């Protein structure tokens, strides 16, 4: 039998304050980064705007790209040339109403023409173009908000129904913790929050809760068996008994999402980054945070019962 871990007897509950402290510290870093960056960088699907990506038959300098954007009437466009490839991305924050009408010569056409004029023989291919009007952006923002709210609510209900309410609360807080950690990473790296990132956050919420539930399931089973043991003992044992499974599943999920991150291409890179990081913190929180929260909630309830 090949084993990743010997049988463990780690006292997770005794050290829970350390883990809470660590999580709070990271959250504070996240909040600081959020304030320092003036909020999250929103993708065009939330903020509205236009994104145009071209590939060229030969290298094109940033000055030439900028000149072409100015000639098209968008001197303030944000331009990112890709490293090592003849690809450039233009981001334009504003969509003028005339551009939403057909029959006008579009910006990408104007940029293409300007580049072809300044560099004879250059071939320009439009890789992708996305535009989102301000109104649609606001709608997608509210969709994202509701998606997160509704799924958290439903998850809380389901776990409260299958376990105790305390467990539901613990699992949902642990999951919100994972979402905050992932958002912190994105804020620190100054990456954009887009609808695919929201999808990744929801998926990792499902994943993290899934991971937590396996531990809770063991607690549920052990509580019946070990009625006389102290509560902390039951929690510790349950986490230790499920530890190798938690790590194994985390590892196999990371194999899949890291493959996406490294080999899946640029379009889904940020999505895969959110997933990979989310799986890591999700695994962490299932081991170190979720059950400890249940313990705290129970202690608080006992204290209240004593006081009454």
């Amino acid at each position, binding site marked *: 039998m090949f084993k990743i871990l010997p049988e463990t007897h780690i006292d997770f509950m005794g050290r829970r304050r350390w883990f809470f402290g660590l999580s709070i510290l990271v959250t504070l870093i996240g909040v600081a980064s959020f304030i320092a960056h003036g909020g999250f960088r929103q993708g065009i699907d939330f903020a509205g705007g236009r994104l145009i990506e071209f590939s060229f038959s030969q290298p094109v300098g940033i000055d030439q790209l900028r000149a072409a954007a100015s000639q098209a009437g968008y001197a303030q466009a944000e331009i990112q040339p890709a490293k090592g490839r003849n690809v450039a991305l233009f981001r334009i924050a504003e969509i003028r109403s005339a551009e939403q009408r057909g029959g006008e010569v579009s910006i990408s056409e104007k940029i293409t023409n300007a580049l072809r004029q300044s560099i004879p023989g250059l071939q320009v291919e439009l*890789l992708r*173009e996305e535009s989102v009007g301000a109104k649609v952006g606001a709608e997608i923002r509210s969709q994202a908000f509701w998606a997160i709210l509704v799924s958290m609510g*439903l998850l809380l209900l389901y776990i409260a129904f299958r376990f105790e309410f305390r467990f539901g609360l613990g699992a949902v807080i642990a999951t919100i913790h994972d979402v905050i950690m992932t958002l912190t990473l994105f804020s620190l790296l100054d990456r954009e929050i887009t609808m695919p990132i929201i999808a990744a956050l929801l998926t990792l919420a499902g994943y993290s809760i899934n991971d937590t539930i396996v531990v809770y399931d063991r607690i549920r089973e052990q509580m019946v068996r070990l009625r006389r043991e102290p509560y902390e003992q039951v929690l510790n044992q349950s986490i230790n008994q499920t530890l190798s499974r938690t790590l194994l599943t985390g590892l196999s999920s990371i194999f899949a999402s890291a493959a996406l991150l490294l080999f899946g291409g640029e379009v889904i890179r940020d999505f895969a980054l959110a997933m990979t990081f989310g799986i890591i913190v999700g695994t962490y929180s299932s081991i170190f945070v979720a059950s400890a929260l249940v313990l705290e909630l129970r202690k608080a309830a006992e204290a209240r019962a004593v006081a009454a």
Partner: protein
Amino acid sequence: MGGNFRWKLLSLIVLLGLSVYALYPTVRYYTMSEGDRAAMPAEELEALRNDALNLGLDLQGGMHLVLELDRTGMQAGEVRDAMERAIQILRNRVDRFGVAEPTIQPQGEDRIVVELPGLLDRQRALNLIGQTALLEFKLVKEGADASRALERVDRAIAEARRAQSAAEPDSDGVEFIHPLIDLMPFYPDMPLGAAFIPAPDLAEAESLLASVDVDSILPIDAQLQWGATPENYQGYTGRLLYVLDRKAQMTGAGVSNAIRRIGLDPARPNVAGVSFTLNAEGARRFRRVTGSNVGRLLAIVLDNKVVSAPRIADRIPQGRGQITGNFSDQEAKDLAIVLQAGALPAPISIIQEMTVGPSLGADSIRMGMQAVAIGASLVVLFMLVYYHASGLIAVFALVLNMIFLMAALAGMRATLTLPGIAGMALTIGMAVDANVLIFERIREEMRAGKKVRSAIDAGYHRAFSAIFDSNVTTLISAGVLWWIASGPIQGFATTLFIGILANLYTAVMFSRMIYDVVASRTDMETLSI
């Protein structure tokens, strides 16, 4: 292996049969060579493509547009009618454009989603779809009528400017006498029947006109309208500003047929134009209008821009006309298409667009599939190293899961998107979880001294509640995402959802069947796990 096992086996055979049936068109379609496809009758190929797994626009390239109808001044019922007509007209235009499998669907009250797979010429598609294509014929005001109108506007702009500079104390006190007319070098001459404004002054003229309410200043029967394309006159390049009758003599609703023609304008024999035929009602009107206005200029106005303004030489009896201008060949062809398909009932705006070029789409498929393959190999290797023969069972379950997933996607006519491929990769990573749970439990039971058979029984039995509850939570997330998101992200949610459902079957039921077969044949002492 009792009766229970027989039922399980039957369910497996039925599901596999259904999967093969659902997947057959997909495998056939995507493995056919170009030659085979060309050899197949068109209808049969079409049917095959319909049954095969669809690739999303992000994978095969194409254009996704969300259009919004301008519903200003419409009642609710009118909006419904206008939407129906708009969709019909867009369908006509797109059909003639020649895209395989376009989708045009209403969304909500006043939106239309247009999907054009595999499209290459983005600009052309935008022109075709976005134009209102409202064609109007209006008489041009010339001479004193036109001058009076222009001077009235000019005066109003001057006054507005004076009022503005009086309000600003630190202005330099420049007098504005003829702000608009000063931009017209030939005034009061009206070359080509309209005021000529050179290109460098165009922006200035446009902002002057926008600064006042031109329509309320002009006489009630007059309006100003720009020429559609630049004109050259005496060495200048610029645009024409026409003074037109406000009332249209007739509209494009009377057009029954329109085609592109080369050399309609004798002065420009190589330039394309559009010649159109009117229906009976339109022809009668045209006859009357041309008959009673011989010698005047008749402006052909498309979407509030004057395309051309030929002089009526004589009464035109047979209901035929032509539009000439600075068209390229393609533009003339597309103009003919939109004229024939008819005008949209109201202007539309493109409020969302996603266009993916075919090479990026091909890249995405290649890299996405590569990532799935690498991820799957790592997971398979991991399971085999860690659980040996039992790991092999989990790998079989995984393969079966993927077959079911693809079959369900094909059978449901779902669309495979790039996020969908990502969903597949994640499904592979997460699907082994159920088997990990079971195997870890079996190991635990064996450590506790149970025999192989009873350890397997207990392992499956005890792990089930954890597997069930944990999968339901992932289903909830995927379900909410499916419900709220659209497009590629919805594809992700679909893949994840089906992947998890299939996983509940393959990882629990199917793997158990294999154990049942293996462990019942021999009175096992040891288990490779």
